[in-house]
């Protein structure tokens, strides 16, 4: 992975995914190795993303590196009309690695083509967010002891949610089976189901939450967003159908864990937080180790 950009989860081989997860595990045991001393990472956040940015900055700090950058475009030269290419070429002079969040889809791929230093995509519009997928994979492996042949239940906005799309693509490499739970308007897009069909992987689709999580290894919750519905009445009908409550976890598998990319609004009731099956805040912590591993490998420090 040395000097390679990370734009899409599909850019990584299975071996590269394993090497990232193994190194993340090493960093979790020893979270402050000063491997990145003398290295500068630029974090270019063209749109606000508090969790992802802080997670990356925490990862750089734990590795002993330094961070420069901006957290919204209005405070950068972008507001003066500078092109993405010019910003990247300039910032590459000041840094060893660029982490970029941008609202325009495909911007990370383009940046990786013009940049002399590696680019890590921290989200390009609704397209890709590979480091989120890698921290999801790390969380799944850590809690299940493996990635192969797991039963993944995905809940909520399956139509627009980029995290579920990337996770589906990644987990399909490990022979997962899937249950999709969503309102009709937010069903998993056809191309992803066709992709699973081609691979011969099983999936089911349901609209009710509680009866369909009993045999899950992972329940991956996402927000159902009011603004996605053309008819507000339709939203009213489903909004309470996708609130995971503690009593619904009774009878689920012992190893089952609830994941969520965060931020949560009301789709996981706070009474779940104390359950040993709630894993979303630890999942966010895992993001730091995973991002440390990604940066260390790209910079050739490991």
């Amino acid at each position, binding site marked *: 992975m040395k000097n390679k950009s990370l734009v899409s989860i599909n850019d990584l081989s299975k071996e590269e995914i394993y090497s990232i997860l193994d190194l993340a595990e090493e960093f979790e045991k020893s979270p402050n190795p000063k491997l990145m001393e003398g290295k500068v990472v630029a974090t270019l956040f063209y749109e606000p993303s508090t969790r992802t940015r802080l997670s990356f900055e925490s990862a750089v700090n734990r590795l002993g590196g330094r961070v420069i950058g901006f957290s919204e475009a209005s405070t950068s030269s972008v507001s003066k009309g500078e092109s993405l290419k010019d910003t990247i070429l300039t910032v590459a002079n000041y840094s060893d690695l660029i982490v970029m969040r941008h609202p325009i889809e*495909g911007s990370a791929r383009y940046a990786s083509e013009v940049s002399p230093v590696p680019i890590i995509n921290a989200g*390009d519009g609704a397209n890709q967010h590979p480091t989120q997928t890698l921290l999801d994979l790390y969380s799944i492996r850590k809690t299940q002891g493996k990635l192969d042949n797991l039963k993944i239940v995905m809940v909520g906005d399956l139509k627009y949610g980029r995290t579920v799309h990337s996770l589906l693509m990644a987990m399909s490499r490990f022979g997962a089976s899937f249950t999709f739970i969503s309102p009709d308007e937010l069903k998993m897009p056809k191309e992803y189901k066709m992709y699973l069909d081609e691979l011969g992987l099983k999936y089911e689709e349901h609209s009710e939450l509680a009866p369909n999580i009993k045999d899950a290894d992972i329940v991956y919750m996402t927000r159902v967003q009011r603004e996605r519905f053309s008819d507000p009445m339709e939203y009213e009908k489903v909004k309470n159908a996708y609130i995971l409550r503690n009593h619904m976890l009774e009878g689920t598998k012992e190893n089952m864990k609830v994941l969520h990319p965060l931020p949560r609004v009301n789709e996981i009731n706070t009474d779940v937080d104390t359950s040993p099956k709630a894993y979303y805040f630890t999942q966010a912590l895992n993001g730091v180790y995973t991002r440390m591993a990604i940066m260390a490998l790209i910079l050739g420090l490991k």
Partner: protein
Amino acid sequence: MKDKKHLSVSAIENGTVIDHIPAQNLFKVITILGLDKIPNQITFGTNLESKLLGKKAIVKIADKYFERDEINRIAIVAPHAKLNIIKNYEVAEKMLVEVPDQISGIVKCVNPKCITNAEDVTPKFKVVDKENVSLKCHYCEKITDQEHMQYL
């Protein structure tokens, strides 16, 4: 009574004849090949009867031959096009177009939020369906199908 004047489209001595262009895509072919910008003599006919296409168009370009890559660019709008290479009034060679694996700089990405529609970036696509022609954007990974294709 005056003699009727006929404007006959004569055979070309040397050049290329592109046949079996879907009539509705004639001007797209002209644009893609840049025929509107070259000084050669060009004649075209459209809405001609065709068993294969219903209505077809045909273009004759004098003193011009195309490279394989160049001509394959029209495959996305004229996948059944046939080329006759004319030398000294004779058909010297016949060619079929082939839909390429990748195309660049011909079609706009359908996604308004794609970087190619936001900055000065040449659109590039992988051809994911050669039969019905659908294109996957190299940058934003969205699919542009034939129905939504707009040409640069």
